């Protein structure tokens, strides 16, 4: 039987506010345990939550970026459950009236193929603390520093049909929140977390199959693997005549498998009700317009501008706008070499990306600053060096030997464009290899490459290849 996979994602993005969503405690990562958990975060008697204005503004920013409806009056609700890292016995979240309503993002699947994925809603809520199970032999340690950190939970429609689409969507949201500056996107530290709802159904069936929810996924690679694994598991069960149990499953990256966490039926009776400690949040036009004016250029707009104004290929434009870091690097380099958008794009996506991947670095930590890359490409452009020599110069820049001009001087890499000097070498090469000259004159074009190689060898790659070619053709004609 043919099966169709259906995936929806719930993404939790930690908002990059300085203080917590309902208290004035710091949200900084990595502090000593419980030093950033104040009376409000601990849920001590008599405290009242007061909403952080910046968290509201960030949610609105996100709404504007995905063209979503903004909840003009949104309401906080209590989600009730008991767990030691949730001091109040409830999480303040939003239920019936979220701050961000229906929106959409477009994802690119390569080769011009793109799809629109619906965002059902996004709501503000507080994060819980952390349970440390390995700290003590027979007890669990609780660190409440994270309790009360603002989260934006972004819920998608079940619009994705493969693990690949789910990853493309997650990456798009990841890039977007970083572009907007509302989340640092650090998956290792848990600032950006993904849960996936996965089900399968016979191809052509309208009704959705029973879904499972996959949790504990902290990288895009694991997201793809966890979904693929879960899809295979569900199909096997169904083909054996079994049925899927609706449940939460944890992904275990080490074993590359998912396993049941708890049955949802009972645990999920959260008894939501409006939080009497918080009044409805009203958002007026003035606030929305103020925030709209601060929106940066977004990936989609950049992509289009790179194609229409800078003449980049669709593929390169897509890659260069995919993250804020790479776009910033490209634009900083472009500011130093305005006419060189296409070679810059090729270099950044080729040499620079390759070197960064090898060194496991991001663009914001690139040892070759964008202005230096631009300096190098200007020297290729004005024929001071060839593209081949440029790779040597790039490596030297990477190793901290200075800018392109300094390296070209210090290593004597300047291209030989003096036609007198080149002509003399070519004459000598022709005189030395009469047999090859004959072959060329007999129509064997390939022999030209042999002569080019001779000259390049003699000049250690420093001859201007175009010029060598032209001179050789002229002289070989005889």
């Amino acid at each position, binding site marked *: 039987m043919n099966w169709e996979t259906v995936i929806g994602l719930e993404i939790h993005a930690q908002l990059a506010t300085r203080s917590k969503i309902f208290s004035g405690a710091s949200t900084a990562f990595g502090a000593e345990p419980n030093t950033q958990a104040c009376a409000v975060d601990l849920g001590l008697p008599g405290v009242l939550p007061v909403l952080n204005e910046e968290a509201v503004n960030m949610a609105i920013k996100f709404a504007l970026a995905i063209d979503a409806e903004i909840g003009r009056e949104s309401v906080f609700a209590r989600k009730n459950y008991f767990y030691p890292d949730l001091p109040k016995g409830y999480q303040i979240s939003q239920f019936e009236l979220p701050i961000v309503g229906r929106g959409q993002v477009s994802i690119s699947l390569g080769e011009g193929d793109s799809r629109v994925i619906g965002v059902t809603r996004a709501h503000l809520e507080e994060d819980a603390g952390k349970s440390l199970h390995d700290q003590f032999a027979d007890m669990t*340690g609780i660190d409440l520093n994270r309790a009360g950190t603002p989260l934006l939970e972004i819920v998608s429609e079940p619009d994705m049909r493969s693990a690949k689409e789910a990853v493309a969507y997650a990456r798009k949201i990841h890039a977007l929140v970083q572009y907007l500056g509302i989340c640092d996107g650090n998956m290792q530290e848990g600032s950006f977390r993904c849960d996936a709802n996965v089900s399968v159904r016979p191809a052509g069936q309208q009704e959705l199959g029973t879904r499972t929810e996959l949790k504990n996924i902290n990288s895009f690679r694991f997201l793809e693997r966890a979904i693929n694994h879960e899809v295979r598991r569900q199909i096997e069960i169904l083909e054996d005549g079994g049925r899927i149990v609706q449940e939460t499953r944890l992904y275990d990256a080490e074993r590359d498998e998912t396993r049941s966490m708890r049955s949802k039926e009972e645990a999920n009776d959260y008894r939501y009700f409006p939080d009497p400690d918080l009044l409805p949040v009203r958002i007026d036009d003035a606030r929305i317009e103020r925030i709209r004016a601060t929106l940066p250029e977004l990936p989609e707009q950049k992509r289009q501008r790179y194609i229409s104004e800078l003449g980049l290929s669709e593929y390169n434009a897509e890659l260069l706008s995919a993250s804020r870091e790479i776009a910033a690097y490209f634009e900083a380099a472009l500011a130093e070499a305005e006419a060189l958008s296409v070679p810059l794009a090729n270099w950044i996506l080729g040499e620079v990306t390759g070197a960064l991947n090898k060194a496991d670095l991001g663009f914001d930590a690139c040892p070759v600053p964008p202005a230096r890359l631009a300096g190098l490409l200007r020297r290729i452009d004005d024929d001071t060096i060839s593209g081949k020599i440029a790779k040597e110069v790039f490596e030297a820049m990477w190793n901290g030997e200075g800018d392109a001009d300094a390296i070209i001087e210090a290593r004597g890499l300047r291209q030989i464009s003096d036609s007198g000097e080149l002509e003399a070498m070519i004459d000598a090469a022709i005189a030395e290899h009469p047999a090859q000259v004959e072959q060329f004159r007999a129509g064997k074009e390939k022999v030209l490459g042999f002569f080019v190689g001779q000259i390049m060898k003699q000049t250690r790659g420093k001859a201007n290849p175009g010029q060598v070619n032209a001179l050789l053709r002229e002289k070989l004609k005889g």
Partner: protein
Amino acid sequence: MSLKSEEVIAIAHLARLGIEDAAIDDYARDLSRILDLVAEMNTVDTEGVAPMAHPLDAAQRLRPDAITETNQRDKFQSIAPDVEAGLYRVPKVIE
């Protein structure tokens, strides 16, 4: 509307309330009366009345995003029953 004793037990469990078996029927009756009152209120015609999420007709005040709290861990932990290495200790939770 009348609650069954199993429902009372389930609700008590969700709220982590311990109730005596002998009291279950009383709870079932009292809670049912509250639900009856809600059912009666539900019959009121509210056509055209916007639902309210809060009894006060006011909007939430917003707070500037500033750190105003200092570290008072020692004070908070002095009233906790079990603390070690800065962590609150609780019976092992296994998922």
